[in-house]
C-alpha cells in the first residue's frame, strides 16, 4: 500500500511539473509580449529609445527575458572591485553613436558586447535620436544586452525556489554573531509570560517560531513557500503570501517595541524581517527597534483570500451533503412519484441554465428577503455569508441528488436487494443499510475534491457578491498579464487536484473493502 501511494504521489508530482511547464510555454512563448503594454499609461507617454528600454525592462519584470544594461554591468565590475566608482561613471558615458565613443569607453563597450554575446545574449545599441542637433525627448543613446529565458532554466529555477528554508547566512551584511536562540519567554510579551520562541540573528525573519493566541497558536517563519512574485495584481508580493495574508482594516493593540516604547499600533512584531540599514534610516524606526529587523506587517481584522473562500466553500460543502444525500435517497425511493419529478425539474434547471443566471436569480431572491447582497470585510454581520453559501450549495445539491439517485436506482434491481426483500427486511432498512452503502461509494471519491476545492474559491459567486476571495485570482492575473501569479496559481490548483484524486482513491478504498490498489487491477 505504501509503495503504491509513493508511486501515485511521484506520478502526481511529475504531472504537476509538466503542467507548470505547459503553462510556462503558453504564457511566455505563445502570448504576444506586446500585450503587457495594452493598458500601461507610462508606455504610451514614453517615446523613442526610452520606450524601447522601458519595454525591455518591463519584460524583465514580467519574467520574459534577462536584461542587462551596460551601466549595470559596470556597477557589477565596481562591486567586484575591478573598477573604481568614479571610473565607472566616466566609462558609462558612451557616445551618441558608436563612432563617437572615447577610446577607453569603446574598449569596455566591446568587452561588454563580447562577454554577453558569448553567453547567448543579444546586444542592442540604440544611437541617440536627434532633432535639430539636440537629443530628442527620450532619444538618449542606449546600450543593453538581453536574452530570452530558456524554458528549462526557468522551470528549474522555479521548482528549486519553490520552498525556501530560512537560515542564519541569509543576511549579507555584517550583523554580529549569527545564531538561533531558543527562549521560553518571548521578549515581546515580557519576562513573565510563558511563550516559547526561536529568535534568529542573520536570518531573514526575526521570529522563526513563536506562539500567540490565534489559531493554530504555534506559528513558524522557518519554511516559506514561494509560488512566484506578482507584478501587477499585488505588486512585489508572492502569490502564496497574497493568498494567505489577512485583509481588511487594521486592528490596533497596545504593544511594546524592542526598545521598550509602548504604544497602540497595528504592527505585528512577529513578522519582522531584515531590511539592511533600516534602523538608522529614520527616527521612527530608531525609537522602536534595536536592530535592523524592522520590516513588519500589520494586524488586520479580516480573513485572507483563501480564508474567505474556504469558509464559504466548506460551509457550502457541508450544506450540500446534508441536503443532497437525503434528497437523493428520497428521490430514489419515491421513483416516478411527485417528489422525484420535482427534484428532476430542479436538477434540469441547475444543469441547463447558465450558472451566471441562477446566481443572479438567487441574488435577486435574497435581496427581496432582505439579505445583504454585497460582502463587507469590516462588518461582523454573519448574514452576508448567507447568499454566497447558498449560491454555492444549491447547485452542488443538484449534482449530488442526480448522481445518488442514479446510483441507487441502478442498485435497486441487483440480486442482493431482491434477496434482502425476500428475507423480509423493511424497505427502509434495505435502502439505508444496503443500497445506500453501495451507492455512496462513487460519491465518497469526490469528497476530498470538494473539500480542497473550497480553497480555490468560486469565480462567479465571488464576483457577484464582491467576496474578497481567491476565486478570481487567476482571471485577474490573466487579465493583467501577471505571469508570476498565473504560474503560481496553476501550480496551486494542480497540486490540489492531484492530492484530492489520491485522497479520494484512498477514502474509497477505506469505505469499500472490495477496492484494492495493491493488486493489479484487471
Amino acid at each position, binding site marked *: 500500500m505504501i509503495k503504491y501511494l509513493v508511486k501515485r504521489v511521484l506520478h502526481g508530482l511529475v504531472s504537476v511539473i509538466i503542467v507548470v511547464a505547459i503553462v510556462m510555454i503558453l504564457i511566455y512563448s505563445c502570448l504576444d509580449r506586446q500585450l503587457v503594454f495594452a493598458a500601461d499609461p507610462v508606455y504610451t507617454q514614453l517615446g523613442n529609445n526610452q520606450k524601447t528600454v522601458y519595454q525591455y525592462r518591463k519584460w524583465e519584470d514580467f519574467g520574459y527575458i534577462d536584461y542587462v544594461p551596460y551601466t549595470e554591468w559596470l556597477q557589477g565590475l565596481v562591486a567586484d572591485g575591478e573598477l573604481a566608482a568614479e571610473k565607472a561613471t566616466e566609462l558609462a558615458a558612451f557616445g551618441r553613436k558608436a563612432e563617437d565613443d572615447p577610446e577607453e569607453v569603446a574598449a569596455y563597450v566591446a568587452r561588454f558586447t563580447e562577454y554577453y554575446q558569448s553567453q547567448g545574449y543579444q546586444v542592442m545599441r540604440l544611437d541617440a535620436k536627434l532633432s535639430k542637433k539636440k537629443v530628442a525627448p527620450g532619444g538618449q543613446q542606449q546600450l543593453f544586452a538581453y536574452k530570452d529565458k530558456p524554458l528549462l532554466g526557468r522551470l528549474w529555477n522555479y521548482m528549486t525556489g519553490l520552498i525556501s528554508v530560512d537560515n542564519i547566512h541569509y543576511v549579507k551584511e555584517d550583523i554580529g554573531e549569527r545564531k538561533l536562540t531558543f527562549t521560553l519567554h518571548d521578549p515581546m510579551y515580557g519576562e513573565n509570560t510563558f511563550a516559547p520562541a526561536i529568535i534568529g540573528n542573520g536570518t531573514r525573519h526575526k521570529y522563526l517560531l513563536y506562539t500567540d493566541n490565534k489559531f493554530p497558536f504555534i506559528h513558524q517563519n522557518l519554511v516559506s513557500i514561494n509560488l512566484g512574485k506578482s507584478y501587477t495584481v499585488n505588486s512585489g508580493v508572492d502569490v502564496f503570501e497574497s493568498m494567505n495574508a489577512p485583509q481588511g482594516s487594521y486592528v490596533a493593540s497596545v504593544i511594546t517595541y524592542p526598545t521598550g516604547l509602548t504604544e497602540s499600533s497595528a504592527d505585528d512584531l512577529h513578522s519582522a524581517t531584515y531590511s539592511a540599514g533600516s534602523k538608522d534610516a529614520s527616527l521612527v524606526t530608531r525609537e522602536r527597534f534595536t536592530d535592523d529587523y524592522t520590516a513588519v506587517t500589520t494586524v488586520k481584522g479580516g480573513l485572507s483570500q483563501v480564508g474567505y473562500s474556504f469558509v464559504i466553500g466548506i460551509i457550502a460543502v457541508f450544506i450540500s451533503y446534508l441536503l443532497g444525500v437525503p434528497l437523493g435517497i428520497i428521490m430514489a425511493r419515491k421513483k416516478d412519484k411527485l417528489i422525484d419529478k420535482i427534484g428532476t425539474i430542479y436538477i434540469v434547471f441547475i444543469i*441547463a441554465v447558465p450558472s451566471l443566471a441562477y446566481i*443572479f436569480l438567487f441574488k435577486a431572491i435574497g435581496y427581496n428577503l432582505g439579505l445583504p447582497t454585497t460582502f463587507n470585510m469590516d462588518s461582523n454581520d454573519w448574514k452576508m455569508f448567507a447568499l454566497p453559501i447558498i449560491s454555492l450549495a444549491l447547485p452542488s445539491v443538484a449534482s449530488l441528488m442526480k448522481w445518488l439517485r442514479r446510483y441507487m436506482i441502478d442498485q435497486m434491481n441487483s440480486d442482493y436487494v431482491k434477496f434482502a426483500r425476500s428475507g423480509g427486511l423493511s424497505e427502509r432498512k434495505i435502502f439505508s443499510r444496503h443500497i445506500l452503502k453501495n451507492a455512496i461509494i462513487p460519491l465518497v471519491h469526490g469528497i476530498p475534491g470538494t473539500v480542497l476545492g473550497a480553497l480555490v474559491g468560486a*469565480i462567479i459567486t465571488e464576483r457577484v457578491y464582491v467576496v474578497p476571495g481567491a476565486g478570481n485570482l487567476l*482571471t485577474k492575473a490573466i487579465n493583467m498579464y501577471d505571469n508570476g501569479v498565473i504560474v503560481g496559481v496553476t501550480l496551486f490548483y494542480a497540486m490540489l487536484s492531484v492530492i484530492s484524486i489520491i485522497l479520494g482513491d484512498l477514502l474509497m478504498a477505506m469505505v469499500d473493502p472490495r477496492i484494492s490498489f495493491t493488486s493489479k487491477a484487471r
Partner: protein
Amino acid sequence: MTERNLIDVSDLGLREQELFSHVDHNDLESEKITAPRYSYWKSVFRVFFKKRINIVILALFAVILAFTYIYPMVIDYDPFKNLMDSSAKHLLPSAALSKFGNSIHWILGSGASGQSTFDAVWFGSRISITMAFICALINMVIGILVGAVWGFSKKVDIVMTEVYNIIGNVPYILFISVLVLIFSAGFWTMVFALTITGWLSIAYFIRTQVIIIRDREYNLASRCLGTPILRIAMKNILPFMTSVIVTLAATEIPSYISYEVFLSYIGMGMSDMSLGRLIYQAENAMLTPGWQFEFWSPVAVASIITVVLYVVGQNLGDASDPRTHM
C-alpha cells in the same frame, strides 16, 4: 362422457381455415425464425413521441431554431439606429411599445444604445447556438473516435491516461484566455479554444464505456468466434453506445452556451455580440433599478434555449436506449 358434450364441428359454422387441420412437415419452413419486425430508429421515434411533453418541447425547439436562424435573415437590424435618440434607450417593454408602435421588435424593450433587445437576443443566440453545435460536433467526433481507440488498446490507454491527467490539471480558463489573446477573440478562435482540449473529457468518458462493454461475455464469445476487432466495434459496441452518445450530446450542447456566457462574464468571451456578451454588457443594467429587464431577457432566453436543448437531448437519449423499446 355423454352424447351431449360432443359438438359436431360442422354445426359451428366455422370456415375451413379456422379449424385445426393437418399440416405436413416442411424442412424449409421449420428453419424460419419468426420475430416481430423491429426497426431501431422507428422504435426510437415511437418511444420518443409516446411522451406528449416531447412534442411540446420539440415544437418549442423548432420555434427557437426558427427565431435564431430565420428571424435574423428576414429582419433589418441595426443596433445603432437609435444611438442618437436618448429617449429610446433603456426602455421597458411597455414604454418601447408605445414609443415605436406595436411590433415584435420591442416586446422586450430596448437596450443601452436604443437597440431592440428582442432582435439583439436572437442575433446573439444565432452565434451562441451555432458555436455550441459546431463545438459539440467537433468534440463529439474526435472524442468518440479517440475514446474508442483508447478503450480498445491497452498501450494507448497508458499514454492517454497520463495525457488526460496532465491536461486535466491545466486550468481550462488559462487555455482559453491564452488562445483568445494570441488570436483575436473571434468566433473561430472561440471554437478552437473550446475544442482544443474539450474532446479529451468526452474521449475519457467513451473510453470508460468501451471498457465496460468490451469485456462483456457476448463480446468475448464474438472474439472467440473470430470476429475482427473493427467489426466488434462497429456492430457489437457502437449500437450499445448510441444512447450514451445522444445523452452526452444533450449535456454537451447546452454546456457550451453556458460556458460561453461564463467566459463573456469574466471578460474572456468573443468580440461578436453573442448571448454571453449581451449578458455581460447588460450586467451594469442589472445593478441599476428599473433597467434589470435588459439583463433578465437575454438570461431568460439563454436559459430557455439550454433547457429545451437539454430536455430534447435527454428524452432522445432515453428513447434511443434499446431497453426502452420493449
